[in-house]
Protein backbone atom coordinates (compact mmCIF):
# COMPACT_ATOMS: atom_id res chain seq x y z
CA UNK A 1 0.00 0.00 0.00
CA UNK A 2 1.27 3.44 -0.85
CA UNK A 3 0.46 6.49 1.19
CA UNK A 4 2.44 9.68 0.91
CA UNK A 5 2.73 12.63 3.26
CA UNK A 6 2.19 16.14 1.91
CA UNK A 7 5.14 17.44 -0.07
CA UNK A 8 6.13 20.80 -1.47
CA UNK A 9 4.15 21.53 -4.62
CA UNK A 10 6.11 22.17 -7.81
CA UNK A 11 6.69 25.97 -7.65
CA UNK A 12 6.43 26.23 -11.45
CA UNK A 13 2.69 25.64 -11.18
CA UNK A 14 -0.10 27.44 -9.37
CA UNK A 15 -1.52 25.40 -6.48
CA UNK A 16 -3.49 22.48 -8.01
CA UNK A 17 -2.45 23.43 -11.56
CA UNK A 18 -5.40 25.64 -12.59
CA UNK A 19 -5.11 29.43 -12.51
CA UNK A 20 -7.23 31.28 -9.95
CA UNK A 21 -9.61 32.73 -12.53
CA UNK A 22 -10.44 29.24 -13.82
CA UNK A 23 -10.92 27.95 -10.29
CA UNK A 24 -13.37 30.76 -9.51
CA UNK A 25 -15.39 29.84 -12.60
CA UNK A 26 -15.46 26.15 -11.66
CA UNK A 27 -16.23 26.96 -8.01
CA UNK A 28 -19.22 29.07 -9.00
CA UNK A 29 -20.49 26.18 -11.13
CA UNK A 30 -19.97 23.72 -8.27
CA UNK A 31 -22.01 25.82 -5.84
CA UNK A 32 -24.90 26.04 -8.32
CA UNK A 33 -24.66 22.30 -8.90
CA UNK A 34 -24.98 21.61 -5.17
CA UNK A 35 -27.91 24.03 -4.89
CA UNK A 36 -29.80 22.29 -7.73
CA UNK A 37 -29.16 18.57 -7.11
CA UNK A 38 -28.86 16.57 -10.33
CA UNK A 39 -28.96 19.58 -12.67
CA UNK A 40 -26.11 19.84 -15.19
CA UNK A 41 -24.35 23.21 -14.87
CA UNK A 42 -22.41 24.29 -17.98
CA UNK A 43 -18.82 25.34 -17.29
CA UNK A 44 -15.91 26.52 -19.43
CA UNK A 45 -13.89 23.32 -19.27
CA UNK A 46 -10.18 23.84 -19.84
CA UNK A 47 -7.69 21.73 -21.70
CA UNK A 48 -5.80 19.63 -19.21
CA UNK A 49 -2.44 17.91 -19.60
CA UNK A 50 -4.17 14.60 -20.33
CA UNK A 51 -6.53 13.46 -23.08
CA UNK A 52 -10.31 13.65 -22.95
CA UNK A 53 -11.62 10.39 -21.57
CA UNK A 54 -8.91 10.28 -18.93
CA UNK A 55 -10.89 12.22 -16.39
CA UNK A 56 -10.33 15.84 -17.38
CA UNK A 57 -13.69 16.81 -15.86
CA UNK A 58 -12.98 15.04 -12.59
CA UNK A 59 -9.48 16.49 -12.47
CA UNK A 60 -10.81 20.04 -12.87
CA UNK A 61 -13.39 19.52 -10.13
CA UNK A 62 -10.73 18.04 -7.85
CA UNK A 63 -8.31 20.89 -8.64
CA UNK A 64 -10.94 23.50 -7.78
CA UNK A 65 -11.93 21.70 -4.57
CA UNK A 66 -8.58 20.59 -3.09
CA UNK A 67 -7.09 22.43 -0.14
CA UNK A 68 -3.47 21.97 0.95
CA UNK A 69 -4.76 20.01 3.98
CA UNK A 70 -6.61 17.37 1.97
CA UNK A 71 -5.70 13.70 1.67
CA UNK A 72 -6.40 12.48 -1.84
CA UNK A 73 -7.33 9.01 -3.04
CA UNK A 74 -7.78 8.21 -6.73
CA UNK A 75 -9.39 5.04 -8.05
CA UNK A 76 -10.04 3.69 -11.51
CA UNK A 77 -12.67 0.91 -11.62
CA UNK A 78 -12.10 0.43 -7.89
CA UNK A 79 -8.32 0.06 -8.17
CA UNK A 80 -5.71 2.47 -6.80
CA UNK A 81 -2.92 0.96 -8.87
CA UNK A 82 -4.10 1.23 -12.47
CA UNK A 83 -2.68 3.70 -14.99
CA UNK A 84 -5.41 6.35 -14.81
CA UNK A 85 -5.46 6.38 -11.01
CA UNK A 86 -1.68 6.41 -10.64
CA UNK A 87 -1.16 9.23 -13.16
CA UNK A 88 -3.86 11.48 -11.65
CA UNK A 89 -2.55 10.84 -8.13
CA UNK A 90 0.99 11.72 -9.20
CA UNK A 91 -0.30 14.81 -11.00
CA UNK A 92 -1.83 16.20 -7.81
CA UNK A 93 1.15 15.16 -5.69
CA UNK A 94 3.28 17.29 -7.98
CA UNK A 95 1.07 20.35 -8.58
CA UNK A 96 -0.71 20.52 -5.20
CA UNK A 97 1.68 18.72 -2.84
CA UNK A 98 -1.23 17.07 -1.04
CA UNK A 99 -1.03 13.89 1.00
CA UNK A 100 -2.28 10.78 -0.76
CA UNK A 101 -3.61 7.48 0.46
CA UNK A 102 -5.17 4.28 -0.81
CA UNK A 103 -7.29 3.80 2.32
CA UNK A 104 -10.85 4.96 1.71
CA UNK A 105 -11.39 5.85 5.36
CA UNK A 106 -8.30 8.11 5.49
CA UNK A 107 -9.14 10.13 2.36
CA UNK A 108 -10.91 13.48 2.54
CA UNK A 109 -11.34 13.69 -1.23
CA UNK A 110 -11.68 10.69 -3.53
CA UNK A 111 -11.61 10.99 -7.29
CA UNK A 112 -13.17 7.99 -8.95
CA UNK A 113 -13.63 6.52 -12.37
CA UNK A 114 -16.66 4.23 -12.51
CA UNK A 115 -16.90 2.88 -8.94
CA UNK A 116 -18.03 3.87 -5.47
CA UNK A 117 -15.75 2.42 -2.76
CA UNK A 118 -17.09 -0.55 -0.79
CA UNK A 119 -16.11 1.03 2.53
CA UNK A 120 -19.05 3.31 3.43
CA UNK A 121 -18.21 6.99 2.99
CA UNK A 122 -18.48 9.33 5.94
CA UNK A 123 -19.57 12.87 6.74
CA UNK A 124 -17.08 15.38 5.39
CA UNK A 125 -15.70 13.23 2.58
CA UNK A 126 -16.07 14.33 -1.04
CA UNK A 127 -16.39 11.88 -3.93
CA UNK A 128 -15.52 13.29 -7.38
CA UNK A 129 -16.73 11.27 -10.37
CA UNK A 130 -15.19 11.33 -13.84
CA UNK A 131 -18.06 11.53 -16.32
CA UNK A 132 -17.87 10.81 -20.07
CA UNK A 133 -21.47 11.62 -21.15
CA UNK A 134 -23.35 13.62 -18.51
CA UNK A 135 -26.69 13.75 -20.33
CA UNK A 136 -28.80 10.66 -19.53
CA UNK A 137 -31.12 11.48 -22.43
CA UNK A 138 -28.35 11.96 -25.02
CA UNK A 139 -28.71 8.60 -26.79
CA UNK A 140 -32.46 9.08 -26.90
CA UNK A 141 -32.36 12.69 -28.12
CA UNK A 142 -29.13 14.03 -29.65
CA UNK A 143 -30.06 17.73 -29.58
CA UNK A 144 -28.94 19.63 -26.48
CA UNK A 145 -31.69 22.23 -27.04
CA UNK A 146 -34.26 19.44 -26.78
CA UNK A 147 -32.79 17.64 -23.78
CA UNK A 148 -32.57 21.00 -21.94
CA UNK A 149 -36.29 21.47 -22.62
CA UNK A 150 -37.08 17.93 -21.49
CA UNK A 151 -35.29 18.52 -18.17
CA UNK A 152 -37.03 21.89 -17.79
CA UNK A 153 -40.45 20.33 -18.35
CA UNK A 154 -39.57 17.22 -16.32
CA UNK A 155 -40.48 15.24 -19.45
CA UNK A 156 -38.82 11.90 -18.81
CA UNK A 157 -41.29 9.61 -20.57
CA UNK A 158 -38.69 8.73 -23.20
CA UNK A 159 -36.38 7.29 -20.56
CA UNK A 160 -39.15 5.05 -19.25
CA UNK A 161 -39.90 3.94 -22.82
CA UNK A 162 -36.24 2.92 -23.19
CA UNK A 163 -36.36 0.89 -19.97
CA UNK A 164 -39.67 -0.62 -21.07
CA UNK A 165 -38.14 -1.64 -24.42
CA UNK A 166 -35.41 -3.41 -22.45
CA UNK A 167 -38.11 -5.41 -20.68
CA UNK A 168 -39.98 -6.13 -23.92
CA UNK A 169 -36.80 -7.40 -25.59
CA UNK A 170 -34.92 -9.10 -22.74
CA UNK A 171 -37.56 -9.73 -20.10
CA UNK A 172 -35.76 -7.47 -17.65
CA UNK A 173 -34.09 -4.04 -17.58
CA UNK A 174 -30.79 -4.90 -19.26
CA UNK A 175 -29.00 -1.62 -18.45
CA UNK A 176 -26.19 -2.68 -16.14
CA UNK A 177 -24.08 0.46 -15.80
CA UNK A 178 -24.77 4.21 -16.05
CA UNK A 179 -28.23 3.23 -14.84
CA UNK A 180 -30.36 6.40 -14.75
CA UNK A 181 -31.43 7.84 -11.41
CA UNK A 182 -33.83 10.55 -10.26
CA UNK A 183 -32.40 12.98 -7.72
CA UNK A 184 -34.62 14.33 -4.94
CA UNK A 185 -37.71 13.69 -7.08
CA UNK A 186 -36.76 16.19 -9.77
CA UNK A 187 -33.85 15.72 -12.20
CA UNK A 188 -33.06 12.48 -14.01
CA UNK A 189 -29.29 12.13 -13.82
CA UNK A 190 -26.56 9.95 -15.29
CA UNK A 191 -24.61 8.46 -12.36
CA UNK A 192 -21.56 8.10 -14.68
CA UNK A 193 -20.68 4.56 -15.82
CA UNK A 194 -20.67 3.03 -12.35
CA UNK A 195 -22.18 -0.47 -12.20
CA UNK A 196 -25.84 -0.36 -11.19
CA UNK A 197 -24.64 -2.39 -8.18
CA UNK A 198 -23.28 0.92 -6.81
CA UNK A 199 -26.46 2.95 -7.41
CA UNK A 200 -27.94 2.38 -3.93
CA UNK A 201 -24.77 3.83 -2.34
CA UNK A 202 -25.52 7.21 -3.93
CA UNK A 203 -28.74 7.69 -2.02
CA UNK A 204 -28.63 9.42 1.36
CA UNK A 205 -24.85 9.23 1.44
CA UNK A 206 -23.16 11.21 4.23
CA UNK A 207 -20.58 12.32 1.64
CA UNK A 208 -20.85 15.08 -0.96
CA UNK A 209 -20.81 13.74 -4.53
CA UNK A 210 -19.51 15.93 -7.36
CA UNK A 211 -19.50 15.02 -11.07
CA UNK A 212 -17.24 16.53 -13.74
CA UNK A 213 -17.52 16.00 -17.51
CA UNK A 214 -14.57 17.74 -19.18
CA UNK A 215 -15.24 17.20 -22.87
CA UNK A 216 -18.97 17.83 -22.45
CA UNK A 217 -18.34 20.82 -20.16
CA UNK A 218 -20.84 19.96 -17.45
CA UNK A 219 -20.71 19.80 -13.65
CA UNK A 220 -23.40 18.33 -11.42
CA UNK A 221 -23.73 17.23 -7.83
CA UNK A 222 -25.59 15.30 -5.17
CA UNK A 223 -25.46 16.91 -1.70
CA UNK A 224 -25.22 14.63 1.34
CA UNK A 225 -28.48 13.13 2.64
CA UNK A 226 -30.20 13.45 -0.71
CA UNK A 227 -32.60 10.89 -2.11
CA UNK A 228 -31.38 9.18 -5.27
CA UNK A 229 -33.80 6.68 -6.84
CA UNK A 230 -32.92 4.29 -9.65
CA UNK A 231 -35.68 4.41 -12.28
CA UNK A 232 -37.85 1.31 -12.47
CA UNK A 233 -41.43 0.03 -12.75
CA UNK A 234 -43.77 -1.24 -10.04
CA UNK A 235 -43.77 -4.71 -11.61
CA UNK A 236 -40.06 -4.56 -12.51
CA UNK A 237 -38.41 -3.04 -9.43
CA UNK A 238 -34.78 -1.97 -9.60
CA UNK A 239 -32.37 -4.84 -8.97
CA UNK A 240 -28.78 -3.88 -8.17
CA UNK A 241 -27.59 -7.34 -9.21
CA UNK A 242 -24.29 -8.59 -7.88
CA UNK A 243 -22.12 -11.66 -8.12
CA UNK A 244 -23.04 -15.04 -6.66
CA UNK A 245 -19.37 -15.86 -6.12
CA UNK A 246 -17.11 -14.73 -3.29
CA UNK A 247 -13.82 -12.93 -3.89
CA UNK A 248 -11.13 -15.53 -4.62
CA UNK A 249 -8.59 -13.60 -2.55
CA UNK A 250 -10.47 -12.28 0.49
CA UNK A 251 -13.70 -14.31 0.39
CA UNK A 252 -15.85 -11.13 0.45
CA UNK A 253 -19.49 -11.49 -0.53
CA UNK A 254 -21.92 -8.75 -1.43
CA UNK A 255 -19.20 -6.67 -3.08
CA UNK A 256 -18.57 -5.88 -6.74
CA UNK A 257 -16.26 -8.45 -8.34
CA UNK A 258 -14.05 -8.40 -11.44
CA UNK A 259 -13.80 -11.55 -13.57
CA UNK A 260 -10.17 -12.44 -14.25
CA UNK A 261 -9.28 -15.00 -16.94
CA UNK A 262 -6.37 -17.04 -15.59
CA UNK A 263 -5.50 -19.51 -18.37
CA UNK A 264 -6.29 -20.49 -21.97
CA UNK A 265 -8.67 -23.26 -20.95
CA UNK A 266 -11.50 -21.04 -19.76
CA UNK A 267 -10.26 -20.89 -16.18
CA UNK A 268 -11.35 -17.79 -14.30
CA UNK A 269 -11.51 -16.25 -10.89
CA UNK A 270 -13.52 -13.45 -9.34
CA UNK A 271 -11.73 -10.82 -7.27
CA UNK A 272 -12.81 -7.62 -5.55
CA UNK A 273 -12.94 -4.61 -7.85
CA UNK A 274 -12.14 -2.40 -4.82
CA UNK A 275 -8.44 -3.12 -4.17
CA UNK A 276 -8.34 -1.22 -0.87
CA UNK A 277 -11.31 -3.14 0.51
CA UNK A 278 -9.75 -6.45 -0.60
CA UNK A 279 -6.36 -5.71 0.94
CA UNK A 280 -8.01 -4.67 4.19
CA UNK A 281 -9.82 -7.99 4.40
CA UNK A 282 -6.71 -10.00 3.53
CA UNK A 283 -4.77 -8.16 6.24
CA UNK A 284 -7.58 -8.93 8.66
CA UNK A 285 -7.05 -12.62 7.99
CA UNK A 286 -9.83 -13.45 5.52
CA UNK A 287 -8.73 -16.10 3.05
CA UNK A 288 -10.36 -16.72 -0.33
CA UNK A 289 -10.40 -19.94 -2.34
CA UNK A 290 -7.45 -18.93 -4.56
CA UNK A 291 -5.36 -16.98 -2.05
CA UNK A 292 -2.50 -16.34 -1.90
CA UNK A 293 -1.13 -18.13 -4.97
CA UNK A 294 -2.39 -15.63 -7.57
CA UNK A 295 -2.63 -12.40 -5.68
CA UNK A 296 -2.70 -9.38 -8.02
CA UNK A 297 -3.08 -6.70 -5.34
CA UNK A 298 0.48 -6.62 -4.11
CA UNK A 299 -0.10 -9.28 -1.50
CA UNK A 300 2.90 -11.63 -1.22
CA UNK A 301 2.79 -13.99 -4.19
Amino acid sequence: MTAAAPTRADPDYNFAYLDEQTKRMIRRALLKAVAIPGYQVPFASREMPMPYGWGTGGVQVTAATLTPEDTLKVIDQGADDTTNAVSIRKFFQRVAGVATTEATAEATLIQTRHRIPETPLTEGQILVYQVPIPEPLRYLEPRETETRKMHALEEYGLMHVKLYEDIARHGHIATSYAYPVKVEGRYVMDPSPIPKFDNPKMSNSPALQLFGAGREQRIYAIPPWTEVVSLDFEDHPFDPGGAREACALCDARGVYLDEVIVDDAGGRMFVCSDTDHCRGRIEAGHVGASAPAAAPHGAPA
Partner: protein
Amino acid sequence: MTAFAAEALDGAFADAPAEASRAFRAALDAMSRPGTLQHAGGARPPAPLPPAAGALALTLVDAETPVWLAPELRAGPVEAWLRFHCNAPLNAAPEAAAFAFGSPASLLAELDRFAIGTPEYPDRSTTLVVLLDAFEGAEAELTGPGIRGTARLALGSSRAEILALAAPNRALFPQGRDLFLAAEGRLAALPRSTRLREV
Protein backbone atom coordinates in the same frame (compact mmCIF):
# COMPACT_ATOMS: atom_id res chain seq x y z
CA MET B 1 -5.40 59.71 -2.50
CA THR B 2 -8.70 59.70 -0.69
CA ALA B 3 -9.01 58.43 2.84
CA PHE B 4 -10.40 55.03 1.99
CA ALA B 5 -8.14 54.37 -1.01
CA ALA B 6 -5.27 53.12 1.15
CA GLU B 7 -7.64 50.92 3.12
CA ALA B 8 -8.89 49.48 -0.17
CA LEU B 9 -5.48 48.08 -1.04
CA ASP B 10 -5.21 46.05 2.14
CA GLY B 11 -6.97 43.02 3.53
CA ALA B 12 -6.90 40.47 0.70
CA PHE B 13 -5.65 36.89 1.01
CA ALA B 14 -1.98 36.73 1.88
CA ASP B 15 -1.57 33.45 -0.02
CA ALA B 16 -4.41 33.56 -2.55
CA PRO B 17 -4.39 30.00 -3.97
CA ALA B 18 -4.32 28.30 -0.56
CA GLU B 19 -6.65 30.68 1.27
CA ALA B 20 -9.13 30.82 -1.60
CA SER B 21 -9.22 27.02 -1.64
CA ARG B 22 -10.02 26.96 2.09
CA ALA B 23 -12.65 29.68 1.75
CA PHE B 24 -14.23 27.81 -1.14
CA ARG B 25 -14.35 24.61 0.89
CA ALA B 26 -16.12 26.56 3.62
CA ALA B 27 -18.62 27.83 1.05
CA LEU B 28 -19.04 24.36 -0.47
CA ASP B 29 -19.54 22.79 2.96
CA ALA B 30 -22.05 25.50 3.86
CA MET B 31 -23.99 25.01 0.62
CA SER B 32 -23.98 21.21 0.81
CA ARG B 33 -24.91 21.15 4.51
CA PRO B 34 -27.46 23.93 4.99
CA GLY B 35 -27.68 25.16 8.56
CA THR B 36 -24.05 24.43 9.42
CA LEU B 37 -21.72 27.32 10.22
CA GLN B 38 -18.36 27.31 8.47
CA HIS B 39 -15.30 29.39 9.20
CA ALA B 40 -14.24 31.48 6.20
CA GLY B 41 -11.15 33.47 7.08
CA GLY B 42 -8.19 35.15 5.51
CA ALA B 43 -9.87 38.37 4.37
CA ARG B 44 -9.97 41.71 6.20
CA PRO B 45 -12.49 43.83 4.27
CA PRO B 46 -13.57 47.28 5.48
CA ALA B 47 -16.71 47.53 7.64
CA PRO B 48 -19.58 46.83 7.31
CA LEU B 49 -18.57 43.86 5.12
CA PRO B 50 -18.06 40.85 7.45
CA PRO B 51 -14.70 39.05 6.94
CA ALA B 52 -16.57 35.91 5.81
CA ALA B 53 -18.35 37.89 3.07
CA GLY B 54 -15.01 39.37 2.06
CA ALA B 55 -13.47 35.89 1.80
CA LEU B 56 -16.44 34.77 -0.29
CA ALA B 57 -16.02 37.75 -2.63
CA LEU B 58 -12.29 37.10 -3.06
CA THR B 59 -13.04 33.45 -3.81
CA LEU B 60 -15.97 33.77 -6.23
CA VAL B 61 -16.23 37.29 -7.62
CA ASP B 62 -14.22 38.53 -10.61
CA ALA B 63 -14.53 40.43 -13.88
CA GLU B 64 -17.01 37.84 -15.19
CA THR B 65 -19.54 38.37 -12.40
CA PRO B 66 -21.60 41.56 -12.27
CA VAL B 67 -22.23 42.52 -8.65
CA TRP B 68 -25.12 44.45 -7.13
CA LEU B 69 -24.28 46.35 -3.97
CA ALA B 70 -26.91 47.48 -1.53
CA PRO B 71 -27.14 51.28 -1.08
CA GLU B 72 -25.36 51.10 2.30
CA LEU B 73 -22.27 49.57 0.63
CA ARG B 74 -22.06 51.87 -2.37
CA ALA B 75 -19.54 54.68 -2.89
CA GLY B 76 -17.66 53.83 0.27
CA PRO B 77 -14.69 51.77 1.35
CA VAL B 78 -16.46 48.46 0.64
CA GLU B 79 -17.03 49.35 -3.00
CA ALA B 80 -13.43 50.52 -3.36
CA TRP B 81 -12.15 47.33 -1.74
CA LEU B 82 -14.22 45.06 -3.97
CA ARG B 83 -13.27 47.04 -7.06
CA PHE B 84 -9.56 46.77 -6.33
CA HIS B 85 -9.43 43.13 -5.24
CA CYS B 86 -12.14 41.51 -7.37
CA ASN B 87 -12.09 43.74 -10.45
CA ALA B 88 -15.81 43.11 -10.80
CA PRO B 89 -18.47 45.30 -12.46
CA LEU B 90 -20.04 46.74 -9.30
CA ASN B 91 -22.99 48.75 -10.57
CA ALA B 92 -25.01 45.92 -12.05
CA ALA B 93 -28.77 46.15 -12.20
CA PRO B 94 -30.35 43.55 -9.89
CA GLU B 95 -31.60 41.60 -12.94
CA ALA B 96 -28.05 41.24 -14.30
CA ALA B 97 -26.22 40.55 -11.07
CA ALA B 98 -24.44 37.25 -10.44
CA PHE B 99 -23.95 38.25 -6.80
CA ALA B 100 -25.77 40.73 -4.60
CA PHE B 101 -24.34 41.93 -1.30
CA GLY B 102 -26.43 43.68 1.34
CA SER B 103 -28.33 43.66 4.59
CA PRO B 104 -31.46 41.48 4.76
CA ALA B 105 -33.66 44.57 4.49
CA SER B 106 -31.96 46.08 1.45
CA LEU B 107 -31.89 42.74 -0.40
CA LEU B 108 -35.55 42.22 0.42
CA ALA B 109 -36.42 45.62 -1.03
CA GLU B 110 -35.14 44.52 -4.46
CA LEU B 111 -35.88 40.79 -4.17
CA ASP B 112 -38.28 40.51 -7.10
CA ARG B 113 -35.72 42.01 -9.44
CA PHE B 114 -32.92 39.52 -8.78
CA ALA B 115 -32.58 36.82 -11.42
CA ILE B 116 -34.03 33.35 -10.78
CA GLY B 117 -32.58 31.70 -13.89
CA THR B 118 -34.61 30.21 -16.71
CA PRO B 119 -36.39 26.83 -16.83
CA GLU B 120 -33.63 25.51 -19.12
CA TYR B 121 -30.80 27.21 -17.19
CA PRO B 122 -31.87 27.63 -13.56
CA ASP B 123 -28.22 28.24 -12.65
CA ARG B 124 -28.34 31.71 -14.23
CA SER B 125 -29.61 33.25 -11.03
CA THR B 126 -28.39 35.83 -8.55
CA THR B 127 -26.64 34.52 -5.45
CA LEU B 128 -27.57 36.70 -2.49
CA VAL B 129 -24.86 37.36 0.10
CA VAL B 130 -26.74 38.43 3.21
CA LEU B 131 -24.72 40.42 5.73
CA LEU B 132 -25.64 39.75 9.35
CA ASP B 133 -24.27 40.79 12.75
CA ALA B 134 -24.26 37.35 14.32
CA PHE B 135 -25.75 33.87 14.17
CA GLU B 136 -27.68 33.97 17.41
CA GLY B 137 -31.19 34.40 18.73
CA ALA B 138 -34.41 33.30 17.04
CA GLU B 139 -34.02 30.10 15.04
CA ALA B 140 -35.39 28.67 11.82
CA GLU B 141 -35.86 24.97 11.14
CA LEU B 142 -34.41 23.70 7.87
CA THR B 143 -35.20 20.62 5.78
CA GLY B 144 -34.09 19.51 2.34
CA PRO B 145 -31.08 18.07 0.50
CA GLY B 146 -27.88 18.13 2.55
CA ILE B 147 -29.78 17.92 5.83
CA ARG B 148 -30.23 14.69 7.76
CA GLY B 149 -33.74 15.11 9.11
CA THR B 150 -33.90 18.70 10.21
CA ALA B 151 -31.33 21.38 11.04
CA ARG B 152 -31.55 24.64 12.95
CA LEU B 153 -29.98 27.95 12.20
CA ALA B 154 -30.02 30.98 14.53
CA LEU B 155 -30.97 34.10 12.59
CA GLY B 156 -31.96 36.45 15.41
CA SER B 157 -33.80 39.65 14.64
CA SER B 158 -33.29 39.13 10.88
CA ARG B 159 -35.24 35.89 10.87
CA ALA B 160 -38.41 37.25 9.28
CA GLU B 161 -36.49 39.00 6.50
CA ILE B 162 -34.32 35.96 5.72
CA LEU B 163 -37.37 33.72 5.63
CA ALA B 164 -38.93 36.22 3.22
CA LEU B 165 -35.78 36.17 1.04
CA ALA B 166 -35.93 32.38 0.78
CA ALA B 167 -39.72 32.06 0.66
CA PRO B 168 -40.21 32.29 -3.14
CA ASN B 169 -37.72 29.45 -3.73
CA ARG B 170 -40.14 26.73 -2.77
CA ALA B 171 -42.56 27.47 -5.60
CA LEU B 172 -39.83 28.46 -8.07
CA PHE B 173 -37.66 25.34 -7.78
CA PRO B 174 -35.52 24.44 -9.72
CA GLN B 175 -35.30 28.15 -10.43
CA GLY B 176 -34.63 30.41 -7.48
CA ARG B 177 -31.94 32.31 -5.62
CA ASP B 178 -29.30 30.79 -3.37
CA LEU B 179 -28.40 32.61 -0.17
CA PHE B 180 -25.12 32.89 1.64
CA LEU B 181 -25.32 34.34 5.13
CA ALA B 182 -22.19 35.95 6.53
CA ALA B 183 -21.54 37.23 10.04
CA GLU B 184 -18.02 38.04 11.22
CA GLY B 185 -15.81 35.13 10.15
CA ARG B 186 -18.61 32.64 9.71
CA LEU B 187 -20.64 31.53 6.77
CA ALA B 188 -23.92 29.64 6.33
CA ALA B 189 -25.90 28.93 3.20
CA LEU B 190 -29.52 28.43 2.28
CA PRO B 191 -29.59 26.90 -1.21
CA ARG B 192 -32.87 27.18 -3.12
CA SER B 193 -33.62 23.54 -2.26
CA THR B 194 -33.86 24.25 1.48
CA ARG B 195 -37.27 24.69 3.09
CA LEU B 196 -37.48 26.93 6.14
CA ARG B 197 -39.96 27.53 8.90
CA GLU B 198 -39.97 29.43 12.16
CA VAL B 199 -39.54 27.49 15.38
